[in-house]
């Protein structure tokens, strides 16, 4: 005899309790601190900040601890928190040309003003497991040199002096904000860039990779990739001038793309742009490739029907919080819909004479 299920509330409580226990893991092992996560899992913290759209390493680390290392879950926690925060105002645009670079490389010039600075990169490491790390190792230190303090010029500017690359004139119009306005198409470039900056790293990578393999190829060179600190400044009306409210680390990538010219544009190099919170190289390079692919229309290129050229496709499917929510919602009960499908399939099978419907047990 069936008894109506009345356990929802208690089941949820118990599930939460179990989850908390699992999150803590073996209590004989020291608990992971938020500080440890923040200082030792920085790349993951950066990803949570970037896709969570909130620059706060402490909160990102806390979210990672709470989510048991599920980064999309951590990003979700950050997003849900972020949306409740009051907005005091807007900062000035950050000046990446004034960045204190930790890393700055160009794939288009062997050497250039400001130099090639590798910085803390995995690039030339051999991917061999370092079993020393499994034991407690002594702290390591890197050789140091005093920073020159000179500004590092943007690579694209060298090309611009010759008129070889499209102009990127300064534009001070307030960009749209998709966290405050519903996404409407066609989306201008600033809006697309905002969406890409928040988009899932894996999705963006896949889209960028598809352009490299020929689905809307744009022949990208990494003109420049730079990582470092920039000042965040805000105009304070009471003071009448801008003050620095803090520093953030960002990764900026500018690609230089071959362009044979079109009816509207002369042959010249074009640009793809990526800017992401923290050290997030893969994401920023991916972003700049996808940005460039999405610009086919303004540059008068052909739409070859590639997914990465399709702004609606990219913008509607790149957000991992939207995607994971909708994907996982199919875990929720659907028995009402399923029941109506069941009746329909039975009816259609009866009409097709496919089977005899078993009688309900009474």
């Amino acid at each position, binding site marked *: 005899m*069936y008894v109506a299920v009345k*356990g929802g509330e208690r089941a949820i409580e118990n599930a939460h309790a179990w989850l908390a226990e699992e999150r803590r893991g073996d209590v004989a092992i020291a608990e992971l601190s938020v500080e440890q996560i923040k200082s030792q899992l920085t790349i993951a913290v950066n990803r949570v900040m970037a896709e969570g759209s909130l620059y706060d390493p402490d909160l990102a680390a806390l979210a990672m601890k709470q989510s048991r290392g599920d980064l999309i879950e951590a990003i*979700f926690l950050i997003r849900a928190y972020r949306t409740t925060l009051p907005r005091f105002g807007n900062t000035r645009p950050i000046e990446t040309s004034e960045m204190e670079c930790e890393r700055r490389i160009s794939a288009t010039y062997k050497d250039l003003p400001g130099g090639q600075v590798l910085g803390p990169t995995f690039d030339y490491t051999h991917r061999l497991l370092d079993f020393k790390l499994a034991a407690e190792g002594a702290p390591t230190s890197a050789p140091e040199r005093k920073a020159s303090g000179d500004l590092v010029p943007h690579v694209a500017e060298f090309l611009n002096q010759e008129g070889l690359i499209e102009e990127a004139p300064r534009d001070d119009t307030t960009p749209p904000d998709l966290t405050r306005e*519903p996404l409407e198409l066609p989306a201008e470039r600033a809006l697309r860039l905002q969406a890409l900056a928040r988009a899932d790293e894996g999705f963006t990578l896949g889209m960028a990779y598809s352009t490299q393999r020929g689905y809307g190829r744009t022949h990208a060179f990494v003109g420049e990739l730079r990582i470092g600190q920039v000042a965040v400044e805000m105009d304070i009306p009471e003071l009448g001038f801008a003050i620095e409210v803090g520093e953030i680390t960002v990764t900026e990538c500018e690609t230089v793309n071959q362009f044979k010219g079109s009816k509207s544009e002369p042959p010249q190099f074009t640009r793809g742009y990526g800017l992401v919170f923290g050290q997030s190289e893969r994401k920023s390079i991916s972003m700049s490739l996808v940005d460039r692919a999405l610009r086919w229309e303004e540059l008068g290129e052909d739409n070859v029907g590639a997914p990465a050229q399709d702004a609606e496709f990219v913008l509607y499917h790149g957000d991992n919080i939207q995607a994971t929510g909708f994907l996982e*919602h199919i875990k929720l*009960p659907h028995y*009402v819909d399923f029941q109506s499908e069941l009746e329909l399939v039975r009816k259609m099978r009866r009409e097709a004479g496919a089977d005899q419907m078993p009688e*309900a047990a009474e």
Partner: protein
Amino acid sequence: MTDYNFAYLDEQTKRMIRRAILKGLAIPGYQVPFASREMPMPYGWGTGGVQVSAATLTPDDTFKVIDQGADDTTNAVSIRQFFEKTADVETTTETSEATVIQTRHRIPEEPLSEDQILVYQVPIPEPLRFLEPRETETRKMHALEEYGLMHVKLYEDISRHGHIATAYAYPVKVEGRYVMDPSPIPKFDNPKMEMAAIQLFGAGREQRIYALPPYTKVVSLDFEDHPFDPSKAPHPCGLCGAEHSYLDEVITDDQGGRMFVCSDTDYCEKRRAAGHVGTLTQEAAA
């Protein structure tokens, strides 16, 4: 949760949502874009409905949440607890007691009244989405009232299967103008949409709100020679004997045994309290 505003959302956001709701009520069946916020529950789990409820609730309201017709399904419990915590409103499981009812996939069996609001959670607000994946195209189609594609789809169903093969989220036409997705309610519920209560539809992930004012004309799409048929399982409820309520099918053993019970738990309980019995309750008593 003391730091959060009444019903979680800040007043500015609620005002933005209310404007979308009012616009929706003014143009019944039209999908109004709104700047959906990230909620502390996942997209696809009722964030649209939750935002609409948050913008609709007042401290004097009595709130009911159902999922699949039941108050005790896990996600209904979770959403009810959310508003108990953030809005401190009275909650109820009784349909007639509630002033605001948030629902997923069902319309209560008991007719609603003019002082009630029914809030639907909507996964895909666009009725034309599975015929045309592009939002830019479907918005144009609505603007031009170009619904031929939908009729062709229904016609193809009939020519292939002998009848329209849509069992839930069955499209409707509102006041002779907009084709609207009624959210994934079974088509059995479609005729109930012409009701006294206000109906609000919230799609959080898709950033759309739409609405039906009381007594709006809502017609399920069909053809003269293939009229709409709001069918359901041909059984009475095993617990309360109701003949005209929507039923869940419950597998009772591994021998193919099954039973049919009301999906609307409040309706079923009320009937049983009033002395109605089904075949199963009779058996158990015997």
